[in-house]
């Protein structure tokens, strides 16, 4: 479609290099593996020409030139080394270090600091400055996650450029000029972003540091393991840095171009405090009446196996239900399925939350398809909260590739890039008339909407358009759970049917793998509680005693994502390796290991490790089921009445949930407070002001004391609340339900953002 | 006379102990006691020199040699194997033969007391230490180097023959079995013997 770019041949340090026309010198130098020092330049942020450290000598040019902002030219002769270059860099460093404090011993960057490295490589060792160094404020609180050390800042503007170029949020700027320049938010408000942690990695010095990692360790003490993030379904590669058995920080993998492009969201970066939380379950717990008893694994597995055998013998396999699986790795999912099939149990369903479907069907696409789409359509919850790093791709597509962003449904698509909102799917066809490449991002919740979308997509595809579908789910490996068969087959009971059977008293055993239906299942917390209480034997594997776990009779300590080895699918269906980076609590077992133990007790033969690995790493396309298989997925169409009044939208939030987020003390104010979000006009109509306390009610169900936040980006007539908050469970309410607001009280003290 | 009975009980008991023990080391201990009792007998029979010789040569040298051989044989390869005792097969005939001859001898002794034939004493019994006193070293030496010179020299010759013989038999000329040949049964035996002795 495009002609090959013209190539240019030049010489760098005497070596001939041929690169496409327009390449920057600093990138061309990488072809001959010459390292040109950079501070302000970043491959993904482009040149800025601020720091001048990348000086190189170009023949026929009288002065040294900066490599980061010089485009290659035919026949250029470049020297990146030599006395002249070194003199230039020494001079640049001397200026950079004029006011840079000598606190490398306590600086978190010390040991992995570019300024430190290049000072040693090119610096002159002693300062010639006779005056005392400029003193600036040191621990400036930029926001909930980031602390700025102004003395250390060399004003390379990588952070503010990231905030502008990559996220388009534009909150970080360089305030003031000259020696008084300082990194700050333009409005003076705290720096809040789902991607704030990335600036600490971008910072070439130790000016921006993470609150969770400040002074915890030195980089050389850390043990690094590369794994795949299991906080959402995007599947970003990340490096886990651990010391003394504590996960201290996670770092992005810059080479992970296929998925994350080297960015991490704050949930993936900061939600690691739960690994060492004291509330983690450390041994199998049995509940007898109201009494919790610590059990040995042998006893626990035996109890489970015995109950299973009893139930199988007395009431048959239809009396046994299995829920969950979206948090498991492929290997574990396969083991669960294998054991359950061996026992003849068909009541298996991974869908313990709102999400009905994880597979994009036959129209799955890669992240590159998303980035290159000319139009991106979001259906239902926008991925900005449920799959933040994926949202960066959408922003890139919109900002740099000129794609149109269209959202359909009760949720706005994005606050940071221009978007069009459409009320219903049928409005779409005309809008997409002249677009070739279309990406659909569906939240997988509203199955009816999904089916409708599938029909629309089929029509678009028939017109010869390239359509790709993305389903960012609620659980990290929902795609794997669905592809590898944790679904009710042949008329078996899905989650809701199982819960109803439980209420009806016909379910004898319910096994729940890493799921919390009490908080997340749309049937409502009260309904699920009641159902679980009627089941004679409930087994739950989890990291913590969640709302569901407290209702179980046997709770098994599971391993968390960084504690086990295996594979998982991301939402595009690519397989990623998950590597154990962290020692699990001594008595925790992964769900796979639990299944192996259970199989041993029940005398079930397991597939060989090789078979298991083959299946776990196969592409889901080979086992995928199509989009819109209504019979399989079941219908959970919420009441989408067109009646007047306020409609409810239930939004995701990266730091909402009853599991790892709830049990991570370090997250602090990152966690959302129970609240609701309204457009100013809607709020005015309801008589609600910013930060007022409001009660939300629908059909006798009430959520008390929600903090109101006004947002111009919100839709008219829609009240948005956050899903998955244990303090205010939203699953009692249906998406699109008509709600009423009342009992408005003013409370200025609680002002703050909700969504 | 009391001394006689005590010593003879010790003598017979230690002799039986020697013959009946399973382990040669215990036999050596029995034999040692036997020799010490014998030495005591010699002492009571005025054979002072012989008593000392009995201890020095018999106990100190010959019996020591046994211990040495036992230690030598167990040093490299553990307690050496030996065939089963002949007890089951030969017990009855052996006891019969022994009893028959013992009976004959005792009968012979009992038929008439051994009245000492009047014989010319070569020496007197008296204060020890001087020549011509029975049992003294001087007396013994004189007899050895005069009357019994020829037997003495013959004995010396026998000793020389024995020394040469021993060197020939136990010397390096004997082919050594390979180590591997020994090693396997050795370890097994060792364990068995430990188990048995527990």
């Amino acid at each position, binding site marked *: 479609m495009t002609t090959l770019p013209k190539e240019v041949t030049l010489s760098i340090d005497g070596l001939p290099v041929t690169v496409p026309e327009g390449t920057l010198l600093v990138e061309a130098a990488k072809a001959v593996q010459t390292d040109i020092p950079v501070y302000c330049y970043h491959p993904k942020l482009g040149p800025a020409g601020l720091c001048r450290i990348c000086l190189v000598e170009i023949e026929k040019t009288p002065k040294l030139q900066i490599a980061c902002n010089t485009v290659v030219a035919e026949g250029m002769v470049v020297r990146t080394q030599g006395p002249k270059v070194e003199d230039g860099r020494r001079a640049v460093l001397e200026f950079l270090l004029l006011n840079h404090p000598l606190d490398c011993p306590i600086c978190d960057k010390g040991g992995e600091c570019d300024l430190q490295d290049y000072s040693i490589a090119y610096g002159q060792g002693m300062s010639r400055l006779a005056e005392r160094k400029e003193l600036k404020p040191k621990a400036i609180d930029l926001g909930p996650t980031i602390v700025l050390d102004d003395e250390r800042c060399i004003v390379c503007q990588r952070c503010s450029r990231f905030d502008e170029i990559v996220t388009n949020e534009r909150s970080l700027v360089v305030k003031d000029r000259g020696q008084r320049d300082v990194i700050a938010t333009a409005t003076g408000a705290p720096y809040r972003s789902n991607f704030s942690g990335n600036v600490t990695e971008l910072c070439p010095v130790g000016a921006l540091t993470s609150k969770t990692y400040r002074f915890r360790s030195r980089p050389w003490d850390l043990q690094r393991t590369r794994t795949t993030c299991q906080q959402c379904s995007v599947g970003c590669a990340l490096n886990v840095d651990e010391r003394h058995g504590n996960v201290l920080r996670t770092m992005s993998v810059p080479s992970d171009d296929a998925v994350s492009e080297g960015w991490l969201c704050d949930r993936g970066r900061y939600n690691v405090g739960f690994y060492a939380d004291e509330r983690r379950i450390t041994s199998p717990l049995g509940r007898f009446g109201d009494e919790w008893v610590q059990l040995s694994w042998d006893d626990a597995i035996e109890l489970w196996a015995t109950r299973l055998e009893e139930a199988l013998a007395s009431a048959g396999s239809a009396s046994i239900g299995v829920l969950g699986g979206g948090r498991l790795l492929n290997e574990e999912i396969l083991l669960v399925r294998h054991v359950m099939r061996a026992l003849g149990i068909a009541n298996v369903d991974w869908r313990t939350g709102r999400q009905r479907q994880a597979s994009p069907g036959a129209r799955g696409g890669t992240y590159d398809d998303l980035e290159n789409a000319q139009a991106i359509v979001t259906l239902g919850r926008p991925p900005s909260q449920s799959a933040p790093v994926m949202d960066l791709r959408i922003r890139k597509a919109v900002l740099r590739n000129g794609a149109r962003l269209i959202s359909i449904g009760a949720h706005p698509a994005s606050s940071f890039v221009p978007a069009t909102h459409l009320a219903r799917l049928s409005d779409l066809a005309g809008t997409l008339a002249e677009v070739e490449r279309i990406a659909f991002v569906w939240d997988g919740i509203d199955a009816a909407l999904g089916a409708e979308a599938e029909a629309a997509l089929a029509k678009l595809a028939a017109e010869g358009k390239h359509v790709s579908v993305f389903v960012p789910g609620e659980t990290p490996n929902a795609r794997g759970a669905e592809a590898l068969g944790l679904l009710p087959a042949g008329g078996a009971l899905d989650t809701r049917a199982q819960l109803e059977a439980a209420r009806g008293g016909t379910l004898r055993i319910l096994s729940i793998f890493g799921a919390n239906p009490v908080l997340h299942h749309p049937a409502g917390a009260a309904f699920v509680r009641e159902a679980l209480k009627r089941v004679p034997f409930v087994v739950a594997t989890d990291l913590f005693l969640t709302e569901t776990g407290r209702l179980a009779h046997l709770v098994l300590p599971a391993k968390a994502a960084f504690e086990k080895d295996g594979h998982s699918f991301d939402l595009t269906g690519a397989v990623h390796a998950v590597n154990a980076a962290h020692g699990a609590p001594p008595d925790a077992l992964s769900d796979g290991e639990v299944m192996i133990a259970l199989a041993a007790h029940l005398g079930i033969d397991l597939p060989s490790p090789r078979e298991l690995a083959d299946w776990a790493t196969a592409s889901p396309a080979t086992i995928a089921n199509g989009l819109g298989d209504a019979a399989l997925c079941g219908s959970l169409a919420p009441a989408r009445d067109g009646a007047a009044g306020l409609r409810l939208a239930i939004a995701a939030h990266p730091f909402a949930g009853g599991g790892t987020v709830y049990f991570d003390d370090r997250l602090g104010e990152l966690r959302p407070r129970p609240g609701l979000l309204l457009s100013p006009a809607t709020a005015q109509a309801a008589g609600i002001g910013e930060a007022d306390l409001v009660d939300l009610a629908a059909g006798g169900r009430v959520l008390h004391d929600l903090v109101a936040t006004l947002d111009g980006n919100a839709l008219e007539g829609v009240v948005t609340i956050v899903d998955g908050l244990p303090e205010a469970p939203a699953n009692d309410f249906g998406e699109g339900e008509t709600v009423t607001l009342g009992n408005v009280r003013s409370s200025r003290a609680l002002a703050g953002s909700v969504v | 006379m009391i001394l006689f009975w005590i010593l003879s009980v010790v003598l017979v008991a230690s002799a039986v102990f020697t013959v009946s023990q399973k382990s040669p*080391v215990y036999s050596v201990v029995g034999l040692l006691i036997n020799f010490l009792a014998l030495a005591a007998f010699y002492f009571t029979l005025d054979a*002072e020199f012989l008593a*000392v010789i009995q201890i020095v040569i018999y106990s100190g040298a010959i019996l020591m040699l046994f211990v040495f051989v036992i230690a030598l044989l167990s*040093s490299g390869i553990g307690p050496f194997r030996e065939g089963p005792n002949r007890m089951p097969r030969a017990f009855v005939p052996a006891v019969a033969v022994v009893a028959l001859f013992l009976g004959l001898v005792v009968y012979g002794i009992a038929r008439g007391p051994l009245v000492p034939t009047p014989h010319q004493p070569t020496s007197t019994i008296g204060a020890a230490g001087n020549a011509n006193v029975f049992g003294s070293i001087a007396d013994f030496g004189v007899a050895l180097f005069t009357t019994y010179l020829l037997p003495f020299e013959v004995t010396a010759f026998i000793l020389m023959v024995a020394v040469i013989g021993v060197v020939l038999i136990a010397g390096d000329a004997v082919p050594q079995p390979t180590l591997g040949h020994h090693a396997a049964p050795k370890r097994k035996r060792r364990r068995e013997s430990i188990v048995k*002795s527990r």
Partner: protein
Amino acid sequence: MLPAFGFALEAPWWVEVVVKSLVLLFIVVTTFAYSMLAERKILGWMQLRPGPNRVGPWGLLQPAADAAKMLLKEDLTPQTADTFIYRLAPFISLIAAMGVYAVIPFSESGNGLWSIGDVNAGILFVFALTSIGVYGISLAGWSSGSKYPLLGSVRSTAQMISYELAMTMSVVGVLILAGTTSLAGIVHAQNRLWFVIPQLGGFAIYLITAVAETNRTPFDLVEAETELVGGFHTEYSGLRFGLFFIAEYLNMITVSCIATLLFLGGWNAPFGLTVIPGIVWFVLKAGLFIFAYIWLRATLPRLRYDRLMAFGWKILLPAATLNLMLTAAVVAVTG
């Protein structure tokens, strides 16, 4: 054969024997204790350090502390040991070592010899008991059921047998000169001239072999710590180890006494200094030998085993035989 007594007391002979034995036992054990202390002290001094000096003044109560330690330590028996013989062995050693003192005359007074019993074949009796003492070592090594003790005991057996020959031969020269095997008789024969002068060769051979017989440095291959951990007593601990320890020192004192009796004229006073009682002279002379022992230990390193055997058989035995033949010839000629 009733033993001869040093003191003619109006009591049954066995009462006298028992009383004398008890007195001697006390003296011998005390001597052992302090010769051990002396050894540690002198060794210390020769190695430029003070030696034991913590228990009591100048460390004089060290032996008591050592004894207490020995008694309080756990008495171990290895699982592979032959229990009966393992327990028996130290007693054989000790009894043989102590038995010798029955015939050693320490001095003489008007009443007779200062000894428990004067056996006619006294010197032979000593050799007899010494040869019994070997059993203690070799049985201990065999019965420990472990390889270092076994090697130690095999070494000791070979060494003792080899050196006993030369030792006996070296003593025979003295016997020829004295014309008696009675220890008292030998001392009496030295009233005019100590046998160390006519029997200088024999004396030298005796000294060397005596060191070997008592397993002392430089002939302590039996218990060579560096090679055999502890030799025959590797597995022994506590009281049983103590018994071996006592036996070793008693043997050392014994051979010192015998050397005094055979070569240094026993209790005979030198240079006519008869004012000083004989017992003092005896103790002085024996003490000289004990000192020589310690001195030797502080000076010479351990011999290699094959050199030890070669030395015994190829040098000492021929030399002793030569010495014997010369003595016999001289006596035969001079009558």
